[in-house]
């Protein structure tokens, strides 16, 4: 697996250590620690996992095992404008997959990836509670309803600088 080799600043390492300490450096709190660290960091790159493993006195392989098990955790940074396509039942039957495919084609990235300029990232999610508007797409906090694959280009264009 290739990952962007990132280098942590001392204060970032200190923040991760503080989060671990808040959970008493307890191996059993790994998921909570990962959750907090991802909120702080945006994602969980290898270097961050190494710090967590060291603080919780467990193997990096085990931390990586948990990070890769849960779809909530990500090792890739989200874009400045994270795009989420709802794949819940209602959205799915009204063509969400076509919309998702169009985003993939248009942005030339897969689900879970970011564009090379770091602007957009793409993910799928399950139900945002707006089934009446299906299919639903979210860009950051903004919700788009009744999206068709033809709308994709227009939505992306809204975020041109």
């Amino acid at each position: 697996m290739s990952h962007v080799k990132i280098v942590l600043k001392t204060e970032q390492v200190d923040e991760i250590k503080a989060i671990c300490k808040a959970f008493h450096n307890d191996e059993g709190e790994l998921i909570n620690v990962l959750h907090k660290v991802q909120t702080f960091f945006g994602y969980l790159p290898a270097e961050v996992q190494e710090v967590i493993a060291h603080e919780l006195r467990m193997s990096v392989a085990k931390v990586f095992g948990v990070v890769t098990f849960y779809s909530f955790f990500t090792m890739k940074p989200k874009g400045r404008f994270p795009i989420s396509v709802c794949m819940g039942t209602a959205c799915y039957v009204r063509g969400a997959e076509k919309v998702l495919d169009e985003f993939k084609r248009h942005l030339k990235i897969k689900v879970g990836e970011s564009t090379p300029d770091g602007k957009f990232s793409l993910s799928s999610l399950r139900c945002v509670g707006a089934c009446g508007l299906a299919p639903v797409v979210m860009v950051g906090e903004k919700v788009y309803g009744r999206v068709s694959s033809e709308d994709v280009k227009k939505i992306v264009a809204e975020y041109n600088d």
Partner: protein
Amino acid sequence: MELIKLTIDNKAIEIEKGTTILKAAKQNGINIPTLCYLELKDLKIVNKPGGCRICVVEVEGRRNLAPACVTECQPGMVIHTHSVRVINTRRTVLELILSDHPFDCLICPKNGNCELQTMAQKFGVREIPFQGVQSTYRKDFSPSIIRDIDKCIMCRRCEMMCNEFQTVGALSAINRGFESVVSTAFDQLLEKSVCTYCGQCIAVCPVGALTEADHTSKVIRAIADPTKTVIVQTAPAVRAALGEEFGYAPGTLVTGKMAAALRRLEFDYIFDTDWAADLTIWEEGHELLDRLSRHLAGDKTVKLPILTSCCPAWVKFFEHQFPEMHEIPSTAKSPQQMFGAMAKSYFVEKLGITREEMVVVSIMPCVAKKYESSRPEFAVNDNPDVDFSLTTRELAALIRQSNIDFNNLPDEDFDSPMGSSTGAGVIFGTTGGVIEAACRTAYEVFTKKPLEKIDFKELRGLDGIRSATIDFDGLPINIGIAHGLGNARKLLEEVKAGKSKFHAIEIMACPGGCINGGGQPLHHGDSEVIKARWRAIYEEDANKPLRKSHENPDIIKLYEEYLGKPLGEKAHHLLHTHYFDRRTDIVIDLEK
């Protein structure tokens, strides 16, 4: 002890409360099949994730079938271990496992020795009704271990050994569902992980997912090369296990047949790593006495305890996990590497050839020895001191390939001058043996008195951590012993915290020591096999005319003719080494 009554396969039984259905059945002559389950009772190794579901049984009144390995017996239970429902379910489970398993059994290194294959044969599986995608994953080649994860059945035995028992933490299950595999941190190659190459993952793998890097064909080619003098050394634990590959009962010593077989394989000289083990004791024993006497004289710079350094997996373990303690282990090379260094200096000089014209092969109970022999510090101008290291299993394969009727071979001896050994060299093959060998010599050198009793029974046993105080003629010497890296870690944490009371500690990475190394014939979860080998090692020791390393006449001659004195300049250059910090550092630098 509270007994409960229940019924298994129409038989009324009484069993101790808390017993699993699997064990209750076994005690009553019923062998429920298992795959992921593994227990080595005497070594405190247990794996029962209840994951494979092969061991399911029917319990009357219970809606689902119960996995026998993790379900405790309850009073009044009525259990059926081979009802139609059980057999059909078991078969379906097996067929589902097989549906995502390659069908290349004929060319698999585990062919004939695979627990999944045995199971398929037992169930008479003739076709797989489930067609679908098979998982694919890259093969991972390291100097010692090959990972072929397509063959993995996710029994998690390797993960348990690597994490819970060894506390190495190289392997973990990663990803989810169909994508899940046992892999390393960040899915890197094993070579880029904290793996120590102890090979205990191989020792417990039921299938062909984890095997050793096979060097047999390289050895065959070297023997066939007329320009090379090919010599072989055999580690102590090999002779106590090789026979199992040829149908002998575990614990049968086949030292003489092994030497004969190696001669039939046309090695030019048949030598013994036990000889080098005696040499190791001369160096390591004197190093212990040197540190001890300086310590007693009040030298505060001297580091105690001294830790043994014969085990390459243990060395790699502390280089990764305790690099700050690199001054504590003995600097003595392992017997394998001492042998290689002497073969390519002392012995090539005797033969009047160059080191490039000699090929040194070692037969080891170990896969980490392959890695050890490839370490750059054990080579001169890129020519390694030990060229190829084969496991006990590879030697058996070599013997079979060469049409040698092992069972009808006569007993033969090792060659001179690197083949003679004492009983002290032999016991290097088991936990407690190295330190007992060291004590036999250190006692006599230190006290200048002969030992009244050669056997140090207090140092023997299979408990994970042991300790004893040996009376060196009024001076009490505290000895610690650990086998299994998780146990070693406990002793090391004590040393690190300055709380260790020991003067010397012996560590072996594998549970039981080399007799249960990752390169030995597979035990398939039977700890009696390991105990039988353990007894055989002490039997071989007791039968030796000489039992103390410092009495080995060929080693005495080696110092007179070539090395000078223990810890002398030449000995230091050829027989001692140093250690490295192998921490994968967290990079702390400015962003981008």
